[in-house]
């Protein structure tokens, strides 16, 4: 560290330069991200309607309305169910595909590209394709299950099938991302461990997986589960365009409610309160992930 008069002058010059460098990004960060979050918290305590000239401070009023709003609870439950379906299936499939790809040496780049393609595609465009695939009469899905003798269904219009159908689309897109994250995790496992396991007698696929692969993938697993959960919590595009929350609120999810209240019904205060609930869930998920990974790192 520089010391003395010249040193202090230099340190000050460095600080000035630093603040100049961070100024644009910091300003943008406060204007576009952190500031609005504070604003959301403030708004949530009001009953302001968009465009209205004045408003009232209602403290926790929005939250008590939420507590009594059946649609809110339905959308929260739907979101949890959606996450509950999407996460295990897409993480499990992602892991399975990654293991299959890594198990051999031929065609790795090819299969990786095949499974990753859905991740890059525009979800909305593909959602419309899926809508066509789910079509009750000419849809591919019904035709395919017809081959095995099952009856066709109206996937997106049936209240009990609509949410799982949307989950299927979500899973379809998430598998590729999970796969490459697991591939990176698998590559990081030292080959030596498998050799040592083979010499020790653990050379069957199950034993190798149990003794080496699974424990070493621990951190990757926590990470993949967390980001899949957080991403699927943010489900919106498919709901908005394919079902608009229906049929009968069967696919109403948290973000969709927030959009409707805030931008269709223009109830900014209430929508802000919904946003806070949404934020609370995602922050909890992230912190949980960090805590789990930290624990693993420290206690080995």
């Amino acid at each position, binding site marked *: 560290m520089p010391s003395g008069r010249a040193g202090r002058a230099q340190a000050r010059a460095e600080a000035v330069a630093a603040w100049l460098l961070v100024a644009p990004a910091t300003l943008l960060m406060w204007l576009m991200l952190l500031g609005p979050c504070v604003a959301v918290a403030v708004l949530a305590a009001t009953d302001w309607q968009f465009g209205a000239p004045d408003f009232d401070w209602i403290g926790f009023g929005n939250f008590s309305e939420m507590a009594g709003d059946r649609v809110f609870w339905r959308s929260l439950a739907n979101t949890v169910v959606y996450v509950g379906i999407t996460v295990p299936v897409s993480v499990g499939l992602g892991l399975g595909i990654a293991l299959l790809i890594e198990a051999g040496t031929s065609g790795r780049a090819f299969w990786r590209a095949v499974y990753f393609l859905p991740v890059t595609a525009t979800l909305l465009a593909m959602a419309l394709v899926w809508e066509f695939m789910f079509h009750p009469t000419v849809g591919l899905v019904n035709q395919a299950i017809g081959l095995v003798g099952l009856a066709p269904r109206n996937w997106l219009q049936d209240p009990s099938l609509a949410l799982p159908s949307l989950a299927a689309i979500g899973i379809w897109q998430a598998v590729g991302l999970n796969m490459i994250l697991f591939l990176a995790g698998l590559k990081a496992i*030292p080959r*030596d*461990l498998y*050799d*040592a*396991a*083979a*010499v*020790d*007698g*653990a*050379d069957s696929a199950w*034993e190798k997986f*149990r*003794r*080496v692969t699974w*424990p*070493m993938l*621990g951190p990757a697993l926590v990470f993949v589960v967390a980001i899949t959960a957080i991403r699927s919590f943010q489900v919106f595009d498919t709901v908005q365009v394919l079902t608009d929350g229906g049929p009968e609120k069967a696919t109403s999810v948290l973000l969709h409610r927030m959009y409707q209240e805030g931008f269709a019904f223009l109830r900014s205060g209430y929508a802000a309160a919904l946003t806070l609930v949404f934020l609370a869930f995602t922050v909890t998920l992230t912190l949980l992930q960090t805590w789990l990974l930290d624990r693993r790192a420290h206690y*080995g």
Partner: protein
Amino acid sequence: MAAVSVRQVTRRFGAVTALDGVSLDIADGAFVTLLGASGCGKSTLLRIIAGLDAQDAGEIMIGGGRVDHLRPRARDVAMVFQSYALYPYMTVAENISLPLVMRRLSFARRLPGIGRLLPGSGPARRAIWSEVRQVADALEISALLHRKPAQLSGGQRQRVALARAMVRHPQVFLMDEPLSNLDARLRVQARAEIAALHRRLGTTFLYVTHDQAEAMTMSDMVAVMQEGRILQYAPPQALYDDPDSLDVARFVGQPRINSLAARIDALGRVLLGGMHTGLAVNLPPGPVTLAVRPEAFRLVRAGLPARVSLIERLGPEAHAHLLLEESGETVIVRLDPAEAAGLALDAPVQLRADAARALLFDRGGTRIRARVHAAEALHA
């Protein structure tokens, strides 16, 4: 304990031949080292013997039986890896016990959780635990049994790797450069401990290294390898005193042997810079290489003229780098501190070599076993 036989083993990776018809016979209970630079094929051979890789041609026999079609677990070998390959998420005790768990407990008894509840699982596990304790006591790592590898020092990890290998009482110990991750001081101690371990156990040890000091100090026999072939397979001292090729002579011995350009004249005498070395061979005239160990030189009053270009004083001895006036080659000579004390840079000296200890190699690097003439030594 078992003898290991390698017969004409070949292994190719694409266009590269890692092992080229290698044959080796390792006696039961011997400590044999595969010595060579990186890429010479020594680790490949070790892995093939272990069963972690399969040869393209040739046979491996352990204890008199062919093992080529057996998995590593069935070959009854144990291996210590360069990186130790300890399972990071298991405790030291679990690491050491894994080979026994895999061998003694059935699939059902190994299942997580419910496996322990099955009858017979308890006594088997207790037996395993006591064996683990025995080995840990022998290697003095009992206090570490409940720690994870990340919490251990390099030397401790190495002992855990050894314990894991020992607990199985294998017929052959395979070691792939186990000391290269230790710092120099630890390495010397570890060498002695491994050698002592070998004496106590009496099991066959097959050791791979690029460090000639390890090979020399620990082994009964050393196989010097280069580019997929064994150059020479002999006891360490024989490699030093009586190498078959220039490559072997250069590989063994620190500082490196001095190789000088010499010539056979019409009378079969070996001349160095025009002077008779005292060696004669029954070969047509032509160029040869004369190799002399640093300690086989002496400073005399009349001999080969040279100039001091560098003196390295190491304490118990000194290495003098001498520039030969005639040929311009530099030789390294080992001297007592007393002899070296009087030397200064650029001082002129006269050299003489002990003809009996000089080694002669032909143009291709193969050893020529020459005859020494009377007591004539290297001098003008």
